[in-house]
């Protein structure tokens, strides 16, 4: 069997504790099925996510990164996701500029009540990254490793 037939992308998902993580939880308790490609990292707020986290994930072999937080206006800390929104806009544009495939790094807003939406987000993100194939550009090659 070819490797490409069985290959599944590994996606790191940074979810904020108050909305998207709870949304993922709701998807789980509601028994909604979604692709198991994501590895969730729970963070206090989407504003906590440093672009360095995203690049470090790609370096360590993630095929994609999903970042999700509360909808603008719904932040538990009132304004964390507004700062995040600015950071992500600039980062996304920069990654596109350097020639990283568009879609490797994706952002979304998912609230604690949107279990179904969370499942759909993961489906969409996974499909997109699957189509892009294995990530090669920022992965750190360990000589002889």
């Amino acid at each position, binding site marked *: 069997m070819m490797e490409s037939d069985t290959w599944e992308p590994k996606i790191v998902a940074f979810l904020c504790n108050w909305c998207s993580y709870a949304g993922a939880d709701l998807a789980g308790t509601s028994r909604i099925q979604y692709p198991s490609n994501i590895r969730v990292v729970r963070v206090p707020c989407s504003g906590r996510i440093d*672009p360095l986290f995203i690049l470090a994930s790609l370096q360590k072999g993630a095929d994609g990164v999903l970042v999700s937080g509360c909808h603008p206006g719904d932040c538990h800390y009132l304004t964390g996701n507004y*700062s995040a*929104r600015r950071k992500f806009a600039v980062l996304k544009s920069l990654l596109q500029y350097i020639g990283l495939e568009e879609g490797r790094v994706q952002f979304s807003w998912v609230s604690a009540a949107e279990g179904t939406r969370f499942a759909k987000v993961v489906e969409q993100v996974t499909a997109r990254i699957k189509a892009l194939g294995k990530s090669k550009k920022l*992965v750190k090659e360990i000589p002889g490793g």
Partner: protein
Amino acid sequence: MSSVSSMSQLTREIRESARKLLRDGQVQVVIGFERGSLPLRSRPCFVRREEDIDRLVWDGCCETNLARYLPKRKEKAAIVAKGCDSRAIVELIKENQVHRDQIVIIGVPCNGMIDGLLIEAKMGRGSIVEDEGSAEKLILKRTNSEEILDRTDFLHEHCKACTHPDPVLYDVLVGQPSAEAAKDTFSDVEAFGARDEEGRWAYLVHEVGKCIRCYACRNACPLCYCPECFVDASQPRWVGKSTELSDTMVFHLIRAFHLAGRCVACGACERACPMGVDIRKLNRKLQKDVKDLFNHEAGMSLEEASPLADFRVDDPEQPMVDP
């Protein structure tokens, strides 16, 4: 730019201001430029005594950004500042690295700094060039003859793209303000962005591949003052220290990102780079994005917060995953 004062006139005025400031005890040190030991090189100079004031000069090779010497300075200092230095000072004041009342800014309108390496490359090593302060011409001195060169051909890249050559913030202004330069169209960023994805990646792989991780770019940058840089942090160690492409690329991306909305485009990083990495490529892109998205130009006002330390509720929403 015809009303630009001659270089010797500017030098005289800078010395006069420095003399007054030191004599009145308003400052303990004047940070300016003195002639370097090689032609086409002027170097930073710290004047503390009146008898040293005549070391101060102003010419077309004062490209170093002196704002680098301000943070953590205990004594009151006067600083000679052209457009980009003054913008860096504004950023430093905003970020509480420099107190406004601890410094006196001697503003100098700038008509672009000459790239000594470029003159050496085109005209031969040891070329002696006289810059009289005209915006258009340089005089190349030969043993028995002189040649007039087009000054704009020999400017630093970032000077060619400079839109605010006059100091933004100053206490004393020497010389005449120059006419505001043309608006920045970011045509270089657009041209690069128009290349295909693989072409862009290949170009950056080539450029970043030259990097030896000496961090000269960071050390020269007037706005890189963190006590511990992310590349030096070991707990956790975010970025590997190797010159492996992935590590180097992440270093350059994050270095540029940390300067988004703060970079004053003085070109210090690129001049410091011993390997000739095209560092401006990323900085220019971020400069453009911050202008387009948040209508912000670094170093132009003391009131405006840095765009990435700020937000608006009605900021443009970028494309998100939205099923």
